[in-house]
């Protein structure tokens, strides 16, 4: 796996435009990857401010900070911003930076389309965040935007719908780019089953995106025409059905959950072998497990709808299918643990995050299994138990994996090692405060606290106060990451080409920081 990079190729980036125009017109996968990540971090902070406002209101019973209408706007927009603005673009950013480096390609397959799929995002974000300032405020129907409540909303809803359309187009273009790149631009000798697992998980994720983003676009477009053009897709008086919206939404929504977690599995599967200094256990079964999860994800959507009054056969089918997903997910966890077993472990910051990920993500997996059981879910649906569950898989899952990946590849991106001490403080603060925030929510949900309420009965007061304290701790811990990033970009210990002792893979054969153009002559993989 030796990469040959002739010296004269290093200078190409001096010919393009400079300043702002460089970023607007760039077709370079590394520039675009960086922009994706900066964008997603800004959205992460915006969504975080909304979360902290929600938690401030819920610190004590009674209405103190915000009024119910605005509270609903906050919960709705927090969800949309975090899912579509923070988590998804962050993974696309990783894909842009890493996939060409990992498969030995010179760039993404469609470089101009890549530019366009990023630059669609800022207008979508402006529509979303700007909707707080229009008459009626932002959309307040929950991130799920259930009809007919979403039909009642003001113009903030229309802005959200258009934002979703734009982000959907962006995601589809990004996904097509990833599929074509992975299938066509691998270096000679890199067969599919030699490909790094991160590329595999993204390839499968990209297929999921292409399959389900149009479904979401259809759902919100039907809401739009119900709102303005007199259709009755979701209105019984006109022959429609409100539950139809939920079926269409969750046919998108459940694969969406895996869109947000499969690339995380990929990142973890790169990091664990590196710091265990041992090859990934069960590579082939990891690939098959990822594919099974993706296929099963199309058959479980109605487990979000057990309380809508499905027939018993429907409930049973979706219950069994959902429980089945526990099997391939379990295989992944077992494989990671087996990779660590009898390794030669060290715990640099990326490995800490990855180990932490396995631990807390699995808690989210178990609560998911409990929610899969229809009778129990009927008690827990729309309670804080569900809020706890999906934050364990999306924060402790997706977000922790993103941090793990960022600490792992920052040396390659910046040429400097990240500050180990700060990185470890960031990890431990995040880990502790995350659990203080979200673990009590299991108890709240079991005891009967509904989600999406601005005020609650007195027996829920103690755990809510605890969750709020944890949330502020968690929020402020993320500022440490900004310090780490700035320090790492500005300077620090020089990173070697192979920044981590146990790292394998083509990205570690190019210098750190990776030059603007890499693999213009494809490497040969043996």
């Amino acid at each position, binding site marked *: 796996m030796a990469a040959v990079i002739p010296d004269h190729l290093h200078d190409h980036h001096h010919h393009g435009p400079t300043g702002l125009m460089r970023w607007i017109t760039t077709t370079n996968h590394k520039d675009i990857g960086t922009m994706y990540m900066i964008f997603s971090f800004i959205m992460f902070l915006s969504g975080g401010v909304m979360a902290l406002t929600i938690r401030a209101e819920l610190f004590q019973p009674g209405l103190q900070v915000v009024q*119910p209408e605005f509270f609903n706007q906050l919960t709705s927009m927090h969800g949309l911003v975090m899912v579509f603005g923070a988590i998804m673009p962050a993974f696309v950013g990783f894909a842009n930076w890493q996939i060409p480096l990992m498969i030995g390609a010179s760039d993404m397959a469609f470089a101009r389309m890549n530019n366009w799929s990023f630059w669609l995002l800022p207008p979508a974000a402006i529509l979303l965040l700007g909707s707080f300032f229009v008459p009626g405020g932002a959309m307040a129907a*929950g991130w799920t935007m259930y009809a007919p409540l979403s039909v009642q909303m003001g113009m903030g809803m229309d802005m959200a719908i258009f934002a979703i359309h734009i982000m959907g187009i962006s995601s589809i273009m990004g996904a097509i780019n990833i599929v074509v790149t992975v299938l066509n631009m691998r270096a000679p000798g890199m067969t599919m089953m030699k490909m790094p697992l991160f590329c595999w998980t993204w390839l499968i994720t990209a297929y999921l995106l292409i399959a389900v983003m149009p479904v979401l676009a259809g759902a919100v477009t039907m809401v739009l025409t119900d709102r303005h053009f007199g259709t009755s897709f979701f209105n019984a008086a006109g022959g429609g059905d409100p539950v139809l919206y939920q079926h269409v939404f969750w046919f998108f929504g459940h694969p969406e959950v895996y869109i947000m977690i499969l690339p995380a599995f990929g990142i973890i599967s790169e990091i664990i072998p590196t710091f265990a*200094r041992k090859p990934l256990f069960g590579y082939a079964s990891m690939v098959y497990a990822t594919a099974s999860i993706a296929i099963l994800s199309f058959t479980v959507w109605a487990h979000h709808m057990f*309380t809508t*009054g499905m027939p018993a056969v429907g409930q049973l089918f979706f219950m069994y299918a959902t429980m089945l997903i526990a099997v391939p997910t379990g295989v992944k966890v077992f494989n990671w643990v087996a990779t660590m077993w009898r390794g030669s472990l060290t715990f640099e910051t990326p490995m800490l995050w990855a180990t932490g990920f396995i631990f807390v993500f699995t808690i989210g997996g178990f609560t998911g299994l409990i929610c899969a059981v229809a009778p129990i879910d009927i008690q827990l649906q729309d309670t804080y138990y569900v809020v706890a569950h999906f934050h364990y898989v999306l924060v402790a899952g997706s977000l922790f994996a993103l941090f793990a990946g960022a600490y792992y590849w920052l040396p390659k991106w910046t040429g400097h090692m990240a500050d180990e001490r700060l990185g470890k403080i960031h990890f431990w603060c995040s880990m502790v405060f995350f659990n203080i925030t979200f673990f009590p929510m299991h108890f709240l949900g079991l005891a009967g606290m509904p989600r999406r309420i601005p005020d609650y009965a007195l027996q829920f007061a103690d755990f809510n106060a605890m969750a709020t304290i944890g949330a502020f701790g968690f929020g402020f811990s993320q500022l440490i990451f900004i310090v780490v990033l700035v320090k790492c970009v500005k300077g620090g210990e020089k990173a070697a080409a192979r920044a981590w002792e146990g790292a394998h893979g083509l990205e570690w054969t190019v210098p750190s920081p990776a030059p603007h153009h890499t693999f213009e002559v494809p490497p040969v993989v043996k």
Partner: protein
Amino acid sequence: MAESRVNLQQPVTQIATEIYDMHTLMLVICMVIFIAVFGVMFWSVFAHRKSKGAVAAHFHENTTVEIVWTVVPVLILLGMAYPATKTVIAMKDTSNPDITIKATGYQWKWGYDYLKGEGEGVKLISNLSTPSEQLDGRQAKGDNYLLEVDQPLVVPVGKKIRILTTANDVIHAWWVPALGVKQDAIPGFIRDTWFRADKEGVFRGNCAELCGKDHGFMPIEVHVVSAEKYAAWVAEKKGAQAASADDPNKVWDLADLKVRGEKVFAANCAACHQADGKGLPPAFPPLDGSAVVQGPKIAQIDTVLKGREGTAMAAFGKQLSDTDIAAVITYTRNTWGNHTGEAIQPTEIAAAR
């Protein structure tokens, strides 16, 4: 109310008991697996460290192990699915109820109609009874803060109660944890669920589906009482309903209409349009100074009866009597800065229906 803070509420029906036990069982199984898997992982974290001189092994697959950890979870899942399947089927069996009650979700209150069985014909509207002073902290919060209503649902102990759910505007969900019941209430459709409470008591729940501004403020309070108490309650309700039935042809004077209208307004309109009539624009427009309220009365009658499509303004035609609608319209047209001097009569409402 069962004071559970860390677990499911104390169940009072067979179904809720099954759910409670199933959850306990699954929790135990998950804990055992969790401890086993992470026991292995943390032993590895502890023992297989480079700093302790651990040298990495080179194995990276083992077909036997991989088959075992695929098949064993499948078997465990089958064990979990069996009791769950039985409960799902039992939950769906709404046949042969003793009493059938329709629960209608409104933004933001519950309406109950006793359709069949003892108590047939009783109707009630159930509003949050926690005073707003307790919400904004001007008054100490009571024990049942946000979980109390003016008119609770009353049912007899030991009888199979079938609840039909539907909604008037958006989707709501009728949820009482101790009874093991949660069923979405979907506008334009009827869904059903059932419970048979094994013991008397007061059981509280909430609307569980986001339904707009006051989603957090439409609780459910169920009183499970003895057969005798239930019979007495039904008699009292029916007597009260007969006594309060209005003569539809009575001609009212303005002052009486305003007094009655103020009460109707407080119970039905003030959540959005606010007690001072200023509303919460733009979602909830003001009535004070409104062109509709000060304009021709037929337009306002039409809006109150039929609602406004695509907005939160509900159709009150089916919820309120002619007299109540006449009173509340009269009130809005003759209070705050509105002085039309008109008294709207119940007959005018009946004519506009």
